[in-house]
C-alpha cells in the first residue's frame, strides 16, 4: 500500500485561535459594560452607540459568533485535518473563510452600534451582512466537505458527524430566518409578521443554541477530551445513539421560548415534551465525556486542560438539565422574562463554551507552536478565577430572577398587586446586578490572563506552519465493503459515506424542522383576526422603526401573558390577531422594564417626552438610560413611501397609491403631537425620531379597545404557580 506524505495547515488554526481570544475579550468586555449599565445607566457615556439597548446585541453576537464561532473553526480546522488524515481542501478557501468571517464581525459591530438591526435576537444583522454570512458559510462548507471527500481515513469519527450536522442545520436556520424584504441598503423588513415571525425566530434562536453552541462543541469534546486525557472516549455506541437522538429532537423544542404567549396551545405542549426528552441525549453526551475520565480522575490534579474541560462538560450537563426544567409551563410562568434565563444561558456560555474553548486553546497553542505553555501557574489561576467568576455571576442572577418573578405575582389578601409599581421589583434586585458584574469581571480577568499566557507562549515558540504527516492512500478495497452488506454494520457503512451521512442528517433535522415550521406557515389562517386591528399610520411605522433601531425589545416585552398578575398590571392579555402587521414582531424575551403592549394612551405625550429625555424625572430610581438624541435625530421622510410599499408587498392592506400620501399623513399626525407638546411648553420637531416614537407608543395595544372585550377576570387563567 502506498504511503503518502502531506502537510497539515496549522496557520489557519493559529489565525482562528488568535481571533478567538481577541473577539472573546471584546465580547466579554462589552458584556461587562452592559452588566455595569444595569445599575449605572450613565455608563453609556451619554451617547447612543454605547447604550445598553445597542450593546446588548453586540455582546451576544460577539460572544456567539465571534468568540464561539472562531473557536469552533479553530478546533474544526485542527481536528478535521487529522481525523481525515488530509490537509484542508483549499488553503485559499480557508483564508477567504477566515477573513470573510472577521469582516462580518466588524460589520456586525459597526451596524449594531449604529442602530442598524432587524431586532430578531442573535439574527439582528441586516440583509447585506446576512448574504455575506451565507457566502462565507458556504465557502466553509465546501472546504470542509472537500477535505472529507479526499480523506485517507475511510471512517468518519463522531466529531466529524457533529461538524456535518452543524453545517447543515445552521445553513437551514440562517436562510429560513433571514428572509427579509429590503427597503434600502441597510433597512429591511422580515417577510413574516407577528406570531409567525415569533415562531420562526425562536425556531431559529433555540436551534442556534443547539447547532452553533452545542453540536460543534460536542464534536470538539469528542476529539480534544480523549486527546487531553490520553484515553479513548467512554462509549462509541453511546456516541452514535446520542448523536442521532440529539439532532433529531433538538430542532423541535423551539416553542418553549413562547410558552403562555399567543402561540396555539398544542405547539407549546409539543415544545415542552421535546424539551424534556432532550435531557436524555444531552446527558448521553455529558456522561460520555465525563466517563472518559473513569480511572484517570487523578489527572485532574495536574492537568489544567482537563480541569477546564471537566468543568465545561459539567456545566453542559447542568444547563441541559435546567433548560428542559425551564420549559415546563409551571416553571416557565415564573422564570420567563426574568434574570433566571440570563443565569441559565451564562452557565452554558461561560461554563460549557468558555471553558471548553480555554481548555482546547491551552492544549492546542503550545502544540502548534512546538513549545510548552508559558506559565502553568497563570493557567491554574485562570481556571480558579474563571470558575469562581461563573458562580459569582450565575448565583445572584438566579436569586434575582426568582425574587422578581415572585414579586410580579404577589397579591395582597384584598386581591391587589402587592408591588404595583414595576420599579419596586427592579430596585429590589439591584444588589444582585452589582454582584453579577463582579462575577463577569472575574471571568474577564481570567480571560485576560489566558490571552497573555497564550501570547507569551506563541512568542517563545515557533509556529509549525506546515506539519508533515503521512498515511496510506485510501484505496477502494472491495473487501472493505463487505461490512456494508451486513445488516449489523449499518452505521459502519454510513460513516464511510459523507454524502449519505449529510443527507440522513438533513432528513433528521428536517423532520423536526418541517413539523415545527409548516404550522408556522399555515398559522396565518389559524390566527383569529380582529376587525379593529388596523395597519400602523406612516408616523407610527416610522416610530416603530425607531423602537426597533434603539433595541427597546432588549428590556421591554410586548406580550402580556394570560395570568391575572399580568392582566392586573398591564391590561388585557395579548392576542395573536393583534400582531398581524408587526414586521418584525417585538415580543421581547426579557423584562428589565415593564411590558409595553398596552402602554398606548396610558400616559400623555408630554410624559413620554420627559421620560425619554430623563427617565428618572418620571420614574425616580429608574435604570433606563436617557435617549436625548431621539429629539435631535430626524426621520428620513424620503424613505417613508418605500416603507409603505414594502409593507404593501408583505400584505399590509394600505390603499393603492397610499405611499404617495404617506408623508403628508405623517406630518399631519406629527403636528397634532408637537402642537400638544407645545401647549405643555415642550418644543419638538415634527420629523424628530421622538415624535414618531411617541406616536407608536401611544398606538400600542389600543386597537383592541375599540371592540367590547370580556373582562380580564373571566379570561385570565390561573398563574400556573
Amino acid at each position, binding site marked *: 500500500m502506498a504511503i503518502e506524505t502531506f502537510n497539515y495547515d496549522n496557520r489557519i488554526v493559529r489565525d482562528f485561535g488568535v481571533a478567538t481570544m481577541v473577539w472573546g475579550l471584546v465580547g466579554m468586555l462589552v458584556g461587562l459594560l452592559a452588566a455595569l449599565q444595569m445599575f449605572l445607566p450613565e455608563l453609556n457615556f451619554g451617547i447612543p452607540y454605547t447604550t445598553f439597548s445597542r450593546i446588548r446585541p453586540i455582546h451576544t453576537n460577539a460572544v456567539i459568533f465571534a468568540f464561539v464561532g472562531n473557536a469552533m473553526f479553530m478546533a474544526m480546522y485542527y481536528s478535521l485535518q487529522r481525523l481525515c488524515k488530509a490537509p484542508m481542501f483549499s488553503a485559499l478557501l480557508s483564508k477567504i473563510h477566515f477573513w470573510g468571517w472577521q469582516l462580518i464581525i466588524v460589520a456586525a459591530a459597526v451596524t449594531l452600534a449604529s442602530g442598524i438591526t432587524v431586532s430578531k435576537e442573535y439574527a439582528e444583522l441586516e440583509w447585506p451582512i446576512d448574504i455575506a454570512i451565507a457566502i462565507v458559510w458556504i465557502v466553509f462548507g465546501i472546504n470542509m466537505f472537500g477535505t472529507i471527500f479526499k480523506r485517507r481515513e475511510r471512517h468518519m469519527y463522531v466529531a466529524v458527524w457533529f461538524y456535518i450536522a452543524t453545517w447543515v442545520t445552521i445553513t437551514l436556520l440562517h436562510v429560513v430566518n433571514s428572509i427579509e424584504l429590503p427597503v434600502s441598503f441597510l433597512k429591511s423588513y422580515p417577510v413574516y409578521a407577528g406570531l409567525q415571525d415569533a415562531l420562526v425566530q425562536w425556531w431559529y434562536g433555540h436551534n442556534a443554541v443547539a447547532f452553533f453552541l452545542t453540536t460543534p462543541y460536542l464534536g470538539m469534546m469528542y476529539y480534544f477530551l480523549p486527546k487531553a486525557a490520553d484515553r479513548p472516549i467512554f462509549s462509541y455506541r453511546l456516541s452514535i445513539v446520542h448523536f*442521532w437522538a440529539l439532532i*433529531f429532537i433538538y430542532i423541535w423544542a423551539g416553542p418553549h421560548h413562547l410558552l403562555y404567549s399567543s402561540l396555539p396551545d398544542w405547539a407549546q405542549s409539543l415544545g415542552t415534551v421535546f424539551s424534556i426528552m432532550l435531557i436524555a441525549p444531552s446527558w448521553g453526551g455529558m456522561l460520555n465525556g465525563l466517563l472518559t475520565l473513569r480511572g484517570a480522575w487523578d489527572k485532574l490534579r495536574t492537568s489544567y486542560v482537563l480541569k477546564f474541560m471537566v468543568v465545561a462538560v459539567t456545566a453542559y450537563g447542568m444547563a441541559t438539565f435546567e433548560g428542559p426544567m425551564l420549559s415546563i409551563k409551571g416553571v416557565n410562568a415564573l422564570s420567563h422574562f426574568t434574570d433566571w434565563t440570563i443565569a441559565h444561558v451564562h452557565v452554558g456560555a461561560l461554563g460549557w463554551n468558555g471553558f471548553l474553548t480555554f481548555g482546547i486553546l491551552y492544549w492546542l497553542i503550545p502544540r502548534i507552536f512546538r513549545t510548552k505553555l508559558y506559565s502553568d501557574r497563570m493557567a491554574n489561576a485562570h481556571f480558579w478565577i474563571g470558575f469562581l467568576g461563573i458562580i459569582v455571576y450565575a448565583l445572584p442572577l438566579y436569586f434575582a430572577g426568582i425574587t422578581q418573578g415572585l414579586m410580579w405575582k404577589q397579591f395582597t389578601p384584598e386581591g391587589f398587586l402587592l408591588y404595583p409599581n414595576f420599579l419596586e421589583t427592579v430596585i429590589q434586585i439591584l444588589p444582585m446586578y452589582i454582584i453579577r458584574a463582579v462575577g463577569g469581571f472575574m471571568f474577564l480577568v481570567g480571560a485576560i490572563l489566558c490571552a497573555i499566557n497564550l501570547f507569551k507562549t506563541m512568542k517563545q515558540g515557533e509556529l509549525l506552519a506546515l506539519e508533515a504527516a503521512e498515511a496510506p492512500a485510501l484505496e477502494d478495497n472491495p473487501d472493505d465493503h463487505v461490512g456494508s452488506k451486513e445488516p*449489523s454494520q449499518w452505521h459502519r457503512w454510513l460513516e464511510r459515506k459523507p454524502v449519505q451521512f449529510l443527507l440522513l442528517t438533513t432528513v433528521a433535522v428536517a423532520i423536526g424542522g418541517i*413539523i415545527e415550521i409548516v404550522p408556522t406557515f399555515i398559522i396565518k389562517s389559524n390566527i383569529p383576526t380582529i376587525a379593529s386591528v388596523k395597519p400602523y399610520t406612516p408616523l407610527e411605522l416610522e416610530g416603530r422603526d425607531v423602537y426597533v433601531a434603539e433595541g427597546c425589545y432588549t428590556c421591554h416585552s410586548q406580550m402580556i401573558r394570560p395570568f391575572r398578575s399580568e392582566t392586573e398590571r398591564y391590561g388585557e392579555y395579548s392576542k395573536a390577531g393583534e400582531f398581524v402587521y408587526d414586521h418584525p414582531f417585538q415580543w421581547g424575551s426579557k423584562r428589565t422594564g415593564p411590558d409595553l403592549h398596552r402602554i398606548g394612551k396610558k400616559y400623555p405625550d408630554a410624559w413620554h417626552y420627559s421620560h425619554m429625555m430623563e427617565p428618572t424625572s418620571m420614574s425616580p430610581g429608574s435604570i433606563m438610560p436617557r435617549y436625548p438624541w431621539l429629539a435631535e435625530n430626524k426621520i428620513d421622510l424620503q424613505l417613508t413611501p418605500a416603507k409603505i410599499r414594502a409593507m404593501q408587498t408583505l400584505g399590509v392592506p394600505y390603499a393603492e397609491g397610499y405611499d404617495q400620501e404617506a408623508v403628508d399623513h405623517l406630518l399631519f399626525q406629527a403636528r397634532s403631537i408637537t402642537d400638544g407638546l407645545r401647549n405643555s411648553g415642550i418644543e419638538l420637531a415634527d420629523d424628530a425620531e421622538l415624535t414618531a416614537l411617541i406616536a407608536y407608543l401611544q398606538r400600542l395595544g389600543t386597537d383592541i379597545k375599540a371592540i367590547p372585550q370580556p373582562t380580564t377576570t373571566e379570561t385570565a387563567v390561573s398563574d400556573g404557580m
Partner: protein
Amino acid sequence: MLSQMLKSVTGLEFYPTVSLVLFFAAFVFTVVKVIRLDRGYLKYMKEMPLDSNDETANSGRFTE
C-alpha cells in the same frame, strides 16, 4: 401548495403523535443496530483521535 394540502387535513392534532412515533422508530432502529456493532470496529473508532500522527513532530516535549 403544501400549506393548501395541510389545510385540507382536519386539525393538526396528529402532528405530535406522528412525531413521537417517528422518533421512537428511528431511536429503536439505531439502538438495535448499535448494540449489534462489531467490537473490533468500535475499538478502532474509539482510538481514532489518539491514533493520528499529529504529535510525532514534537512528541515528548510537553508537560500535559
